[in-house]
């Protein structure tokens, strides 16, 4: 009796959508355990916790934020290629608002000192964040209008901003990489309060988004539109508004990611901030088990997916793989994970594990 119950629960676990993302994460961490000495070491300094694991969470926060927005977009059956570029736009706007003087060729002496003052900001922090996030939401809204109302294919529609976005970011700062000296802003990205600040931000955003999608009917509507937009329309769901919402939120989260990234490296680097991160975000969502054709989504599974991506990167750096080669390794990891997901391979695994189940029963 007890045995059969435990086997039933085991099946429930393997059929959960979190099962495979977790397995993937565990596999990466297992690799670290075997091949990297001291990878799991944790250190406490001044009451703050440091270590590779913490670092995965901290560096992963940008991809997690992107993956959250991307999950909604992919669930509607779309995709957003522009999130990396929106990050760059956000970073440029924030940096410019804090320190517009940097762009001047000649500055009066009294201002020259101010520019590198860690306590100086031109606009107050709340205004910087507010404007940055509004602009990035507008970027998302633009994508949404193109796709929902312009009926442009998502991949093409968001490609426009992906290409133009970095140019816009360059225009905003006149092509200059603005250094960020203002400490409170930098604290958002690299500060610590026992755990890294970005981690708190991610937890907060995740909770709000989860409540927003799962405690209202938004999540159901998104999934319904993703599975069958026409049936949803016949049932009274305004699929255009739902898509608009998903892309706008995706832009908003990309803006947040841009703030975190620029605060962390203390510069608005329009060329490099968020470079190729849209692909990491898409892969994170895919690893999280949301289908690219849309439909069912799990925010938590996407977070795990993002951590798989980040853990891979961090591990590769830890064993000294050169940055350029990391991409190749990432490719291999993604390939292996997606292999786990293919119906053929799963069928194979099921056949292998089937005799065991009989023993259980």
């Amino acid at each position, binding site marked *: 009796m007890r045995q059969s119950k435990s086997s039933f629960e085991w099946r429930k676990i393997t059929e959960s959508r979190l099962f495979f993302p977790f397995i993937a994460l565990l596999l990466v961490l297992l690799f670290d355990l075997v091949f990297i000495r001291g990878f799991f070491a944790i250190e406490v300094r001044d009451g703050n916790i440091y270590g590779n694991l913490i670092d995965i969470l901290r560096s992963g926060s940008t991809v997690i934020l992107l993956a959250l927005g991307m999950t909604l977009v992919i669930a509607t059956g779309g995709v957003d290629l522009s999130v990396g570029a929106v990050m760059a736009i956000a970073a440029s706007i924030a940096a410019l608002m804090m320190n517009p003087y940097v762009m001047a060729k000649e500055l009066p002496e009294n201002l020259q000192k101010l520019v590198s003052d860690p306590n100086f900001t031109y606009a107050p922090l709340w205004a910087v964040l507010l404007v940055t996030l509004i602009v990035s939401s507008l970027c998302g809204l633009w994508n949404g209008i193109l796709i929902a109302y312009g009926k442009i294919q998502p991949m093409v529609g968001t490609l426009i901003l992906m290409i133009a976005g970095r140019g816009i970011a360059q225009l905003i700062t006149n092509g200059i990489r603005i250094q960020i000296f203002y400490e409170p802003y930098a604290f958002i990205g690299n500060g610590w309060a026992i755990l890294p600040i970005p981690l708190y931000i991610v937890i907060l955003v995740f909770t709000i988004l989860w409540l927003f999608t799962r405690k209202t009917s938004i999540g*159901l509507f998104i999934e319904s539109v993703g599975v*069958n937009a026409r049936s949803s329309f016949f049932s009274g769901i305004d699929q255009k508004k739902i898509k608009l919402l998903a892309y706008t939120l995706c832009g908003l989260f990309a803006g947040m990611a841009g703030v975190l990234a620029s605060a962390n490296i203390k510069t608005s680097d329009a060329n490099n901030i968020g470079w190729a991160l849209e692909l990491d975000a898409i892969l994170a969502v895919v690893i999280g088990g949301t289908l690219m054709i849309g439909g069912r989504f799990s925010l938590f599974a996407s977070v795990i997916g993002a951590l798989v991506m980040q853990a891979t990167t961090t591990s590769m750096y830890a064993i000294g793989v050169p940055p350029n080669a990391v991409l190749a390794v990432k490719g291999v990891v993604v390939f292996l994970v997606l292999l786990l997901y293919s119906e053929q391979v799963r069928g194979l695994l099921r056949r292998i594990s089937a005799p065991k189940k009989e023993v259980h029963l």
Partner: protein
Amino acid sequence: MASMNDEIVIMRGINKSFPGVQALENVDFSLKKGEIHALLGENGAGKSTLIKVLTGVEHPEKGTIKIEGKEVSIKSPQNAQMLGISTVYQEINLCPNLTVAENIMIGRAPMKFGSIDWATTNDQAKKLLLELDVDIDVTQTLDSYSVAIQQMAAIARALEVSSAKILILDEPTSSLTTHETEQLFNVMRKLKSEGMAIIFITHFIDQVYEIADRITVLRNGNLVGSYETKNLPRLELIAKMIGRILTELDDMSKYKLESSQHIKSDVLLDAQRLGRVGSINPFDLELHPGEVVGLAGLLGSGRTEIAQLLFGIESPDSGSITMNGKVIEDFSPIKSIGRGVALCPEDRKVEGIVGDLTVRENIILAMQASRGWIKYLNSSDQNEIADRYIKLLNIATPSADQLVKNLSGGNQQKVILARWLATNPQLLILDEPTRGIDIGTKAEIQKLVLKLAEEGKSCIFISSELEEVLRTSHRIVVLKEKEKITEYSGEVAERKIMQSMAGSE
């Protein structure tokens, strides 16, 4: 004088089933040289499956096919072409942005010095079209010509492909004007006189009588029979297509009579000269609480178009709708739901179910949409609603959390019905609610419709099965070719309605 040698195609005892559906059951079919043979039947009758079997797209589970006396097994569309079978599909599957010549000759263009010899290609294409009495500039792109010409190009291509002996035309006239249709018929007659065997699929009865030599009727995957056109009166043909189901439903009429006493005199909905160009000509319609109004007409007669106009899928471009005394100005599904209108759509898979959601989610979907995003039904409410309708409609599902795509067609239909009943509509429009489902479930749904009417709801009932419409409706609106022809109330003879549907004779 049909000798065996004339029969170029003989299909015997063809069986084909798909999960949950017997698409063809023991169907025989034969085609002679130099004849135009109409293949008729309502949706789901098995016409396209039969054609797919003949063209190698589907493989029958049982049965034999003989082409020119030799037994063959048609493995693929390529294989069918080699046997001389060519098909022109309903949707023209050519490339609109290539030239006419490219479309006709693609893949077989003559080569010279390792590249395509365009001069010869264009000449050959031109010649092929001239044989069909079409004289056009073949170097223009296909989409610069009318649909009829495109259809001709498709036929020219079909003839080019395989020195065809058998030509299958699947609804070739559905997008053609009268004049274009005439042009196509001339081509068909010409091909026929050259000995081509032509299978012609259509739902326009008039056209069948204009051009077909013989008629084969299918219904629910079964062969009804093959007839010489001249020996089969229209009325009989329609009766054969529509059929009647043999059930123990005679008590329905008594039930209906009783329920008709509950019809109120006040007007729930009043449509005046309502119409939309290209879908339905202006019509008047008045609905009363407690009344079931049936829409009778063949496929394409405008039944579905009326349903979609009333529900706001399409906006009318003429006339007005008044509901509960208020003139309606904004047309969209969500507004209609708010007004208490519900539409159970014709195409269950495409417009009805959301396959990857659960039964529970599918049932609450429209209700939730009308509540808005913030007033989310919590899971206990959801479960209660779902369980109530699963019980009420006898939905066979292991649990409310089953994905709806895993249910059988009939149960999916009930889930859609549940979705709309949950919105507590005043007007329930049911477009083919019983298509493709078993007789038992059909009866359940018909009874349910009358019960709902008795509760004071108004229903519009659309079905290809005339007998079903008759059995459930207090009043019947007859449609023909996108126009409301007439209206009958009370007890009407089936024959009378069929006469209206058929038009002439």
